[in-house]
């Protein structure tokens, strides 16, 4: 026998379950470090081997309770504290509705912990290099024999005595199992590090590719790139070529106040009166709406300096004497009905918004054509 080989233990085989029970009983009264190998669990063996009850249940209990507590607390935190939301009239902490998930997570935690705990903590698995593997003994107990193995770690172990002991029990095929003490290789071999690097590259590359490329190709992008008409774009579908549609004829908006001179080309004799005061809020609204709807053609300050680079005829300045002398109702008439190439804005601006724009235009006019008194007021800081 090789000098480096050490004895693991001595094994013996038995043919019937009755024999193995008897042998286990006898062995357990003499030796402590021994094991019984049977192709299936033999009943009564726990007592025969004098084994203490399995403590596996404690792992199950501990992790089961952890799962339940985690599920309940997490749902409580997310639905009552982090983002409280009332759903279906239930309270924030809707215990009955939390029960199903609590139960599922309890089961999941408990079972996984039981199995992983048993395999790693109780069994020390995976353990394919155990000395008993690939022995005749293992092959027989895997099939239909019942074996007993007295290990060399036992205090009373003595090879010849153990062989005699087993012979007396009636065991056949008594065998001494040897093993080579192996130096456990360090984890950080080149192979393992290469493996880690490859895993890292595959996982990070795969994640990057999925999130940044894959989800942007057909058909995954079909929610983002739909067949639709964008605002202000042309359409070949409608006869007039416009993507945006006019309201159906006769459509009345909710805040509509009918304009008495609607559709009349000339300026009215008695233009209607501006109902809005020139307050700060009104001017702010007017400024916003003016900048959105009027400024592309009339310019930011009403000078008629269009931003459209000749794509549309430039309108006249709003600071002409004619416009300055107009009543508010005259400007309202133009915005509502349109004039020359300027279309009506009645469908895009409510009447209040139109009046607000007019107030803002008045402010622009006063600023552009300020009188001496205005300048003095500004310098005093009391402009009204």
């Amino acid at each position: 026998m090789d000098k480096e080989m050490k004895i693991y233990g001595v094994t013996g085989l038995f043919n019937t379950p009755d024999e193995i029970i008897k042998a286990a009983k006898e062995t357990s009264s003499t030796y402590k470090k021994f094991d019984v190998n049977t192709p299936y669990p033999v009943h009564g063996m726990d007592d025969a081997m004098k084994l203490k009850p399995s403590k596996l249940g404690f792992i199950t209990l501990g992790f089961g309770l952890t799962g339940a507590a985690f599920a309940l607390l997490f749902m409580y935190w997310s639905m009552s504290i982090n983002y409280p939301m009332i759903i279906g009239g239930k309270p924030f902490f809707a215990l009955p509705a939390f029960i199903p998930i609590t139960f599922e997570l309890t089961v999941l935690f408990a079972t996984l912990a039981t199995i992983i705990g048993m395999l790693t903590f109780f069994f020390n698995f995976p353990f394919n290099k155990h000395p008993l593997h690939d022995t005749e003994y293992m092959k027989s107990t895997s099939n239909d024999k019942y074996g007993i193995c007295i290990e060399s770690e036992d205090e009373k172990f003595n090879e010849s005595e153990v062989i005699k002991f087993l012979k007396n029990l009636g065991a056949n095929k008594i065998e001494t199992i040897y093993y080579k003490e192996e130096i456990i290789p360090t984890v950080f071999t080149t192979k393992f590090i290469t493996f880690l690097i490859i895993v890292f590259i595959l996982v990070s590359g795969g994640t990057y590719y999925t999130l940044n490329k894959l989800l942007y190709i057909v058909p995954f992008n079909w929610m983002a790139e739909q067949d639709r008409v964008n605002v202000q774009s042309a359409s070949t579908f409608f006869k007039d070529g416009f993507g945006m549609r006019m309201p159906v004829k006769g459509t009345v908006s909710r805040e509509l106040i009918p304009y008495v001179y609607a559709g009349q080309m000339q300026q009215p004799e008695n233009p209607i009166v501006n109902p809005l005061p020139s307050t700060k809020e009104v001017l702010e609204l007017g400024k916003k709406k003016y900048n959105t709807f009027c400024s592309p053609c009339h310019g930011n300050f009403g000078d008629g300096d269009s931003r459209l680079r000749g794509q549309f005829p430039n309108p006249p300045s709003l600071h002409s004497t004619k416009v300055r002398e107009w009543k508010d109702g005259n400007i309202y008439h133009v915005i509502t009905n349109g004039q020359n190439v300027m279309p009506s804005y009645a469908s895009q601006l409510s009447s209040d918004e139109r009046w607000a724009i007019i107030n803002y235009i008045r402010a622009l006019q006063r600023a552009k054509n300020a009188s001496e008194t205005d300048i003095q007021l500004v310098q005093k800081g009391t402009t009204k």
Partner: protein
Amino acid sequence: MNIDYANEAPVVEGRLSISEIEELIASPIDWKVDRNFKIALSITLTFLLIGAVCLGLSFYWGIGLWGNNQPVGWAVPIVNFVFWVGIGHAGTLISAILFLLRQKWRTGIARFAEAMTIFAIMCAGIFPLIHTGRPWLAGYLFPYPNQHSLWINFTSPLVWDVFAVSTYFTVSLVFWYIGLIPDFATLRDRTFSKVKKTIYSIFSLGWRHSHRNWQHYEKAYTLLAGFATPLVLSVHTIVSFDFAVSILPGWHTTIFPPYFVAGAIFSGFAMVETVLIFVRKIFHLEQIITLNHIEKMNKIILLTGTMVGYAYGMEFFIAWYSGNPAEQFVFLNRAFGPYTWAYWIMVSCNVIFPQLFWFKKIRRTIPISFIIIILVNVGMWFERFVIVVTSLHRDFLPSSWGYYKPTLYDMGILLGSFGLFFTLVVLFTKFMPVVSISEVKAVAEGAQPSHHGDSN
């Protein structure tokens, strides 16, 4: 675990020795790939391919290819989901509930039924995912930290379903694998091929049949069975909540959870028996999966079929007893409306034909049993069809009533799910022991000590 096996009829017929049992179960794995295997696999793969093509087209063009539309938005995909989840339940029932009830005849069929559970949940899982239209975004179903601090709605039955089905799959897989570890060790010690030995070694994790391990192993098995039992009941209960928690007449009933669980076991046993009838013949396992097994499964089918029949009746009674005209309309419409054909297929396949199992002769005649259980499989698919479609197709507004018809794509995907299921079954029978070797050895005659450790 001390049970008196002394005075029971033998589970394994023919007084096989323990090594003969092992030979019988493990040798088919070493058989050469034969013609029958190739034919079976090519048929199942063809079905799978049809399903894959239909699914690919559905992904490319969108789920408008299916028949789902207002008012029937939950149509065949959800029918298929409930159908397949139900099939899975028999496996856990056999492996866990019958284990706790100390029914040792379960050992012959438990492994196979557990494998079918796993494959059935795989098939089931496809359907809710594809029904969302964009399954690649399914990660949103799980709570994950995000910059909106937005969480999923934990009070929704649909979210319960996600947790229930994924837990069920994980636990079933673990349960199945734990049962396989000793068998992998046995196969490892049997084989002479180096490749096979390496594979079996990896999966057996180095199992040594040590009794110090068996002790914890049996404990773990009992604990797992204890958890799997309420789990399996919870899963189909939660699936039924998907319907019952809504306020739709026809779905909003408290009988749904027990009714769904009974139906699930009913359909699951039918599917297990359908496949086992072939497996025992092909692999010559008649002595391990005996006629007694078939008879016992037929009894369970009779029992659960009758329970399902009771539920059908009780639904009508409650609809009448509630005095709610909407409820009454839905149930009358179910039985005598446009889908009357589906309703009566369901009732005859699920309630009427299984009553033949009252006769012992029929229970023990395989061809007749086979016809009846095929009808049960069909009937249970129609049960889900009836529940989903007939409740939806005529809602409160008569102006939006409709008649749902599945398209070819719907049926192609259903066929594909059968293809996936049977492909996995065929591969399983080829590469793994279809019956638990160690469990059957343990219940063979003379396998346990005669005096339970009192021998001296």
